[in-house]
């Protein structure tokens, strides 16, 4: 049975279908990666239109709150096994938007990230390398973010709801709020 698992992992690692969702400016380096200069199709990676068809979710950069909501919805529509790639420094710690009121700082709190790619923005070589790295992780059976998400669903949900379903002002200054309204 473990041979069978190895075999499926071997094939999964060679056929990553990527969701065509440009969440941020990092998506700018995806067209060169897809097209003739770097050609990620060599590694079996192709962009797919809908979350149902995709295996990996590239979070290309910063995530605004509105985007995060849609990203989570999209992630939950994907079929297991699925992997999340944090792309660029914004997904790691907020990047240059560390003090922005509308950009989340750590993707890890809201979605299980299997692999981060550093840089702002990561070069196509780095993206290709990340695919190779992810392939190694998948073949070793270590990239289990989707299982982690299911296991710790309440925790993730609580984190998500904390930023997405706010019921009162974040900065506790109700008197100012009433004045501005």
């Amino acid at each position, binding site marked *: 049975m473990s041979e069978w698992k190895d075999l*499926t992992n071997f*094939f*999964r690692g*060679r*056929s990553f*279908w990527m969701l*065509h969702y440009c969440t941020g400016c990092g998506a700018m380096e995806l067209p060169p990666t897809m*097209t*003739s200069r770097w*050609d990620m*199709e*060599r*590694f*079996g990676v192709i962009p*797919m*239109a*809908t*979350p*149902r*068809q995709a*295996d990996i979710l590239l979070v290309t950069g910063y995530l605004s709150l509105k985007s995060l909501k849609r990203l989570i919805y999209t992630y939950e529509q*994907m*079929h*297991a*096994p699925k992997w999340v790639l944090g792309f660029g420094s914004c997904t790691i710690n907020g990047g240059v938007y560390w003090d922005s009121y509308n950009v989340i700082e750590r993707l890890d709190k809201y979605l299980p990230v299997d692999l981060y790619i550093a840089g702002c923005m990561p070069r196509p070589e780095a993206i290709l390398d990340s695919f190779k790295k992810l392939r190694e992780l998948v073949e070793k059976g270590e990239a289990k973010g989707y299982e982690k998400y299911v296991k710790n669903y309440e925790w993730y949900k609580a984190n998500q709801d904390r930023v997405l379903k706010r019921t009162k002002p974040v900065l506790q200054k109700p008197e100012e709020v009433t004045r501005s309204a």
Partner: protein
Amino acid sequence: MIFLKLLEGIGVGLLSLTVGLLFMGLARKITARIQRRYGPPVLQNFIDVFKLFSKQSISHGFAFDLGLVAGVSALLAAVVFLPMGQINLFPHNSSLIMIIYLMTMAYLGMAMGVSSSGNPNATIGVARALTMMMGYELPFAAVIFSVYIFAKTGSLTNIVAAQGGGFLNWNMVRLPFGFLAAEIALQGMLGEKPFDMAIAPAEIASGPMVELGGKYLGFGMLQHAVGIYLETGIMVDLFLGGASNIWIFVTKQFELFFIALLINAVLPRFKIEDGVKFMWKVPLLLGVIQALIVVL
């Protein structure tokens, strides 16, 4: 005896799947080369299909399951009637119209499956695919009936037999207009550009495939694979004089598919009504001219 036929039939099905997937892989490679890329491995599509069948998926109900399975199964049921070189399982049962109507069942199944998901993108895709089907079936029908009248038979086995004896006896040479018309219709049948409005990703997010994932998408890919095999196979039998063995048959199929690929790589897609109008102008005219030549 029956058991042997059964095995043979399953063998033919596997053959068509293999060749179809191989063609799809080659298609990706060749397209990549035209686009100045290296391209994926030739066997990439086998990897993809295997992965898809090992992936979990969601379903919208039994009609969804049945439709997708029917898409592949009906085509596999049709492919056993196709004479291919020395492999001809049912030589007395290879009526062309029957094969074409059997293929319609695959389309019906696929359309039913994807529509039952209730996604309007998928339904628009299906509406477009059916509209396009009306476009290309008309010239193709004109060609088929010309060949019927010309060969005085409707069985593919006999049509192949009538073309024996060298290149000059091929219908491609004898019915050149018909061949051209059928070639353009084939482009539409294969769903290659400029006639791929049904799946147009930039417009309707890959159309019918929008809700397919995991094994359902795998079934979709297999259907496409068998479809390529069957449609090019019919063309080979109709116009390229069939083949004496399976290797030559597959080579001839690939030649036709290769032409379709080259056109596919350098053209954008039509609007749906422009596509239908084009089909009813150029290939239909060619088909009608051919029919006139044959009848008179």
